[in-house]
């Protein structure tokens, strides 16, 4: 449980937003670079949230729209983190912009929790449990699949080159 049990590279990170066990991420708010990181997160968050809002405007009135948003966002974070964290590819602002910003802003836990609570209050316990468990299963399955497919593609590309 201590910091010592961690590898020091980003491949050991648990938290994709920021993991202070990773020295490079610990240092990314030092000095003036802090504002570049925060601006990248903010801009990404705006794009992600607008995409989520657009999906709800396009397909209103059902909790399954947010289900779809969350599942897609989880698949994409799996792809992104393999490339950025495990492979160390891309610009230093890619994780803040795409991971923390776009995908963090796109997916939402609070709307999920409120929708489950509202279904429970309306006495629709079965739908509430189905939605709660369905999102969880869909999200975890999607992130697993995103990671697995990307790792396999990276390994194949590495073997071919």
């Amino acid at each position: 449980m201590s910091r010592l049990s961690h590898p020091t590279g980003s491949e050991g990170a648990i938290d994709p937003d920021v993991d202070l066990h990773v020295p490079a991420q610990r240092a990314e708010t030092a000095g003036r670079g802090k504002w570049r990181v925060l601006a990248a997160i903010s801009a990404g968050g705006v794009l992600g949230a607008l995409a989520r809002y657009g999906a709800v405007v396009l397909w209103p009135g059902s909790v399954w729209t947010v289900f779809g948003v969350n599942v897609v966002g989880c698949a994409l974070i799996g792809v992104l983190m393999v490339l950025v964290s495990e492979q160390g590819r891309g610009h230093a602002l890619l994780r803040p912009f795409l991971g923390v910003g776009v995908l963090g802003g796109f997916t939402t836990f609070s709307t999920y929790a409120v929708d489950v609570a509202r279904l429970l209050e309306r006495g629709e316990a079965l739908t509430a449990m189905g939605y709660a468990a369905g999102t969880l299963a869909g999200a975890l399955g999607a992130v697993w699949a995103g990671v697995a497919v990307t790792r396999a593609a990276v390994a194949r590309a590495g073997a071919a080159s």
Partner: protein
Amino acid sequence: MNWLLVAVGAAVGAPLRYLTDRAVQVRHDSVFPWGTFVVNAGASLLLGVLTGALVFSGTYALLGTGLCGALSTYSTFSYETLRLAERGWTFLAVANVGASLLVGLGAVFLGFDVARGLVQ
């Protein structure tokens, strides 16, 4: 108009998640992702208040869809859960799921009660 309000709320919410996550990790060094747990619970509480108080659509777009939506995250939560399981911390992975769901839902109901107390 609501598009702009969602954008403004999210412009604050996403960096607020990042800064809160860092602040929690600085104060509490742990493998368990307490930072994400805290932002998700906090955003659920605030969204519970906003939903319970039946605020105007503009307020909801700014603080609900924008701020709470960007402050909370499902992608970070699910990736962390996968990583905990991959690294062999199965108990922590299960605890992350259970605690996030229970506390998130509890926070929403608390928010409903707070809002209804304020409105009445």
